[in-house]
Each structure stands twice: as C-alpha cells, then as structure tokens.
C-alpha cells in the first residue's frame, strides 16, 4: 500500500493559460525542458549566448514573468552562492553557477506553469511509470502550491498562542531555532494527515482497480512534432557545441 501525495492541500500551481505552450503535448514540453537543462553543461561564454535564446523562448511563450518569479524566490540562495563562489573560487565560477541556477528555475516554469497534474500523469504513464506512482507524483506536484499557505497558517496559529513571535534581531536567533519545533511539528503532522486523507479518498473511489480505463489520451499534433524536432536539433547542437 502506498501513500498518495506528500504535501499540503491539493491546488494548482498557477497555470499560464495564455501561453502557447499550454496547448503543447506534455511529452514535447518535457523534452524541451530536458533539452534546455542540458545547457547547464556549457561554458560561461556559450551559456551566456544560450541564455539570450532562452529568454526569447520565454518571451514567446509568455512565461518570462513566471520564470522571473521563480528566480526571485531563489534570490537568497543565488546571492549566497554567488558571494561564496566569488570569494572562495573565482568570479567566473560565481557567474556560471548563478546562470545555471537561473536557467533551471526558468525550466521549472517552462514545464510546470503550462502543464496540469493530469497531463503530467499521462506523460509519466507514457514513459512507463506505473499508474500508482505517476498518480502520486502528480498529486504531490498539485499540492506544492499550498506549502506557503500552510506554513503561514501554522506561524499565525503559534503566534496566537504565544509559541512563536516575529523576529526582532539576531539576539533572537536561539529562540527562533527553538520556535522551529513549534512550527515544524504541526507542518509534519498536517502533511502526513493530508497525505493519509488523500489516500483514503482515492481508495474510496476505486484507486488501484485493475479495471481502470483512462478517459483521456495523449495525441501529438503537428505543432508538437515540430517543437519536438526543433528541441532535438537544439539538443544535438548543444552537445556538439560543448
């Protein structure tokens, strides 16, 4: 018996409905995203050149704001990594590592902002991932969007009972670490309970039935084939260019 889902309430990540990629087959998008990820292998000059093309792709796909949002979320990680690499290794390495992370954050937006959990599940099934695991993964993906909401709710609830307070300076650091217990235990409990509730709900609706017949099927359109061909060409060029 497996547990379904891992986090939070089920909710969509924000889908960019007006993106041309929204209507593209998830398998083609998966290939596109993997291909874009290959660029992390490039050297600094080539990576910088690729980033130009990549930004144009994001602009065409109307995903630039979403990709920028993903990068903004990583700002502290990027700043710390950049500073550490620059101080301890070199500026070149700091720039290349930062660009690679920015690229990967954008790739995340490329796929997950244009794909529903059901489409992800179909793509995974096509890749011969068993239905129960594909379903669990799609449920986890669907649930990610509520992590922030749940974490905030826990902080508020603990503040209301005086078990957590807003930080007021570095001297509070030890107290804040202690407060983490008050925050992390409810987070783990809620996640586990939610996963269990989803498991029960799925089995109560016949999950794991050998009779299951999928209602929707994936079908590649001409645009999908074109995108896939272009993607594979770029992937080949990237490998050669390297």
């Amino acid at each position: 018996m497996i547990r379904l889902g891992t986090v939070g309430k089920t909710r969509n990540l924000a889908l960019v409905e007006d993106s041309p990629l929204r209507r593209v087959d998830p398998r083609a998008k998966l290939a596109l995203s993997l291909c874009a990820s290959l660029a992390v292998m490039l050297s600094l000059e080539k990576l910088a050149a690729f980033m130009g093309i990549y930004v144009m792709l994001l602009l065409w796909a109307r995903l630039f704001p979403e990709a920028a949002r993903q990068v903004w979320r990583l700002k502290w990680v990027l700043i710390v990594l950049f500073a550490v690499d620059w101080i301890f290794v070199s500026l070149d390495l700091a720039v290349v590592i930062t660009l690679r992370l920015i690229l990967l954050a954008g790739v995340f937006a490329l796929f997950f902002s244009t794909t529903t959990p059901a489409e992800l599940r179909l793509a995974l099934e096509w890749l011969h991932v068993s239905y129960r695991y594909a379903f669990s993964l799609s449920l986890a993906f669907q649930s990610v969007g509520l992590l922030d909401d749940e974490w905030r709710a826990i902080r508020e609830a603990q503040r209301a009972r005086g078990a957590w307070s807003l930080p007021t300076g570095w001297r509070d650091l030890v107290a804040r670490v202690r407060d983490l217990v008050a925050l992390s235990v409810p987070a783990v409990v809620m996640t586990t309970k939610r996963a269990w509730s989803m498991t029960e709900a799925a089995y109560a609706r016949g999950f794991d039935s050998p009779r299951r017949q999928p209602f929707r099927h994936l079908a590649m359109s001409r645009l999908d084939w074109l995108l896939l061909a272009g993607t594979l060409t770029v992937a080949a060029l990237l490998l050669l260019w390297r």
Partner: protein
Amino acid sequence: MSLVWVQQVAYRYPQNNHGLASLSLSIEPGERLLVTGPSGCGKSTLARCLTGLIPHLYHGMLEGEVWLDSLRTVDTPLWQLAERAGLVFQNPAAQMLAHSVEEEILFGLENLGLPHDIIVQRLEATLTRFGLQAMRHRSPQTLSGGEQQKLALAAITARQPPVLVLDEPLSMLDGTAATELVAHLAAITDAGGAVVICEHREEYLQTLPGLHTLRLDVPTPPEAQAPTLHLHPVEAKAQRLEVKGLTVSLAGRTIHRDLDFSLDAGQIVAIVGRNGVGKTTLLRALAGLQKHEGSVRMNGSQPDLGLVFQNADLQLFNASVREEILFRVPDPDMELYDWLLEVLGLARYEDAPPLLLSEGEKKRVALATVLMRQPHHGILLDEPSLGQDAAHKAQLISVARALADAGQLVILTTHDLPLAAQADRLLLLGPQGFVADGSPTEVLRDGTAWDSLGLSVPEWVHAPGVQL
C-alpha cells in the same frame, strides 16, 4: 440478504484505545440510517468498517464480520468494495484529488473501467444534478466549503454505489448548503440507494422521512461534574471593542469593506454567515494577524484577544497535554490549569500526546493553551463546535460564560445554530457587512435577514414554544 450486514463488529486502533464497541446491524436498499452519539463513540470507525477501509487501510484489532452486498469485506479487494459502498469524508478539502471539478468526478469513473461514452453520460448527468456545470473547469480548492462538499458527494455518487456512507457531512456547512445536501440524500434513497449518515448535527437531518437512528455510546465513563472556578475579573465591564472602517483584502479580493461595529466586554457574541463570507478573516483581523485598513481598538488601545483556530493541528506540538497547555506560560496559574482540565474534559489525558487525541479533544486542548495565557481582553473561537458532541458543547459554553462573567469578550463564529442561540448577541454576516444584529431570539427569527443571504434556518427555530 441485506445490502449491508454487520455481525458483532468491534475495532480498536493500534495507537490508542479508541475505536468501536461491538455492534450488529443490517441495512436494506432505500434505507436512511443516522448514526449519532458523543465524541469518541466510533461513528467514523463504523463508516470505515462499512466501506472496507477497515481492515484494508487500518491494521488495528477487528472482531466480527461486515458483509457488503454478499461480499465479506476482509476477503474482498478494496476497489471492489468501493464499487458497492462510497464514503464521503468529513473534510471536503482534504479529499480533493484533481485540479478541476470535472477531473475530480472523472477519477472515480475511470476506476470503474466504463466505456468512454458511458463516462461522458455519467459526468454530464452528475454535473447537472449537482449544479456544477458552471464550475466544471475550476480548481476544487477555489470552491467554498459547501461547494466542495457537494463535489465530494457528486464524485462518489457518479460511481452509483448501492450504499453511500457520509462521515459528518454537515459539520462545515452553512444552513443552505446543509439543506441542499439533505435534499440530495433524499433523492439518492428515493432512487433505491441506502444512505448511512454519521453526524452530530441532527437538526437538518430530521427532515429526512423514514430516517432510522442508531445511537452509539462512549465506552469510557463520562467526566465528573467540573468544579466551579471564580475567575478574577480582569477589567471593568465598561470595556468595549470598537471596530471602525475595517477593510480586509485577500489575493486582490475585498473580503470586508468598511465594517463598523462595537462589542461590549462581558458578553458571548456569535457570528454566523455563509461558507466563505469571511468569518475567519474577520477573527484574524481582530486578533491582529490579518493586515487590514481601519481601526480595531479596545477602549482606545490595541486589544489582546486570544484566537483558537478551527484546525487544532496548527497549534499543537508538545509531547503531553500538560506540556502543551503550560508551554511558555510564565508563572502559570495552576488553579486555572486544573480548572481547564476539568471543565474541558481533559483531566484523563493530562499525560497523553495531544496529537493522538480525537479532533474534538484536540480542539479543547488548543482552547486550553490559549486560555492559559490569559489574554487580557477575551478570546476568539473559530468554529468551536466542530467535532464536539452535545456534552462538550455545553462544557464549551460554560467556559465561555465564565470568561464573559469575568468581564472578558468572547466572540465565536459558527454554523451551529443551537450553539449560536446560547450567545448573548448574534451577528449575521453577509458579503456587504452585518445584516442583522441583536439577541439570538431576534436574529434567528428575522426571516428577512436570513433570506437576504440565501441562508435557511432549521424548522426548530420557528417551532411554537421553543425557548431560544
């Protein structure tokens, strides 16, 4: 043979002694059975036994046998049992599995292995029957509590199981959503299905014709009568909470606009309104947890009001009830501590981990943690009666009354009208602000105000001779 046949079934969860005491019953096609009883009597456990989740997903100690449509649950795969008995759980948000309303219904239909055209027929019929067509592409998480509960019921009934089991389906619903749900249940049984409803809130179900009732008992002895605590009056009763121009927006949507009201300390105030109208948001603003425009003042200063959340899991994390209640309370008043344990029925759980208690018990622990801090001006209770039986609701009211008598302000939000009727003042909240304000008797009988919000009031409110 009966549709459901339960022979001497008893169950005990592995992590504690809770569960279901031995019982036998049978259910025939078209039967409407209400299973009721105090917290911890085993209503949810029975629901899980009837649908086969026990013993397939739970591995405690099961005695006796459950037969579902001639299949013994212990020997039959869960997916086969799910075709014969559908279970709608208490919390609708936690049972949503898909990213759209349509996909939510399709999930269960796919698992039946039906041909494509039959799935389309059933999907469309279900969307029409439950009035969900307009929201078929919306995310279930964007629906109100009532709409989510309707969707949960739709997703199960689309599979057409002969037996439908509902675990506290009304607990989170406003009057209108509860009335609609009961009408759907009546239609299902009229079509020959059997319905089993495990529920505390009986007031809306009494309108179901031919309803049989099964009352379960708690296997443990009831709490002794709690002693009386004379709380020290903390402030003069002239204290008043003044709210002026309160405007709250969430995710770009204005929830409250220019709310003006004042509440006297020393009172229990109940706030009632439809699902999603912003009752919880209002409490969060009063507690200072929600950004807002306008002012919230208690005699000119920032009020100190403790907030007890709807979901107790957000607030509990310690290893025992004692540690939980006394956590970071400087110089705790142990007389108050003892009184809280007694009056909230927690004395026997003092050393137990709070997270292993029932939902109702956890809510009472969360209440005790907030009260132990002795907030200066009062407390805010968000849906305090969720998961509480009649006896514990009475305990809750006695605590609220003691606080009010000591000069504190107690504000509670609820869908539970019998609970609201015990307040000193009742406010009816609509999308444009309060539409009625007065004593519970006045407000509950103000049909125009309730109609203006599309809310229904149960029949008992209007029954002759009823003393509210």
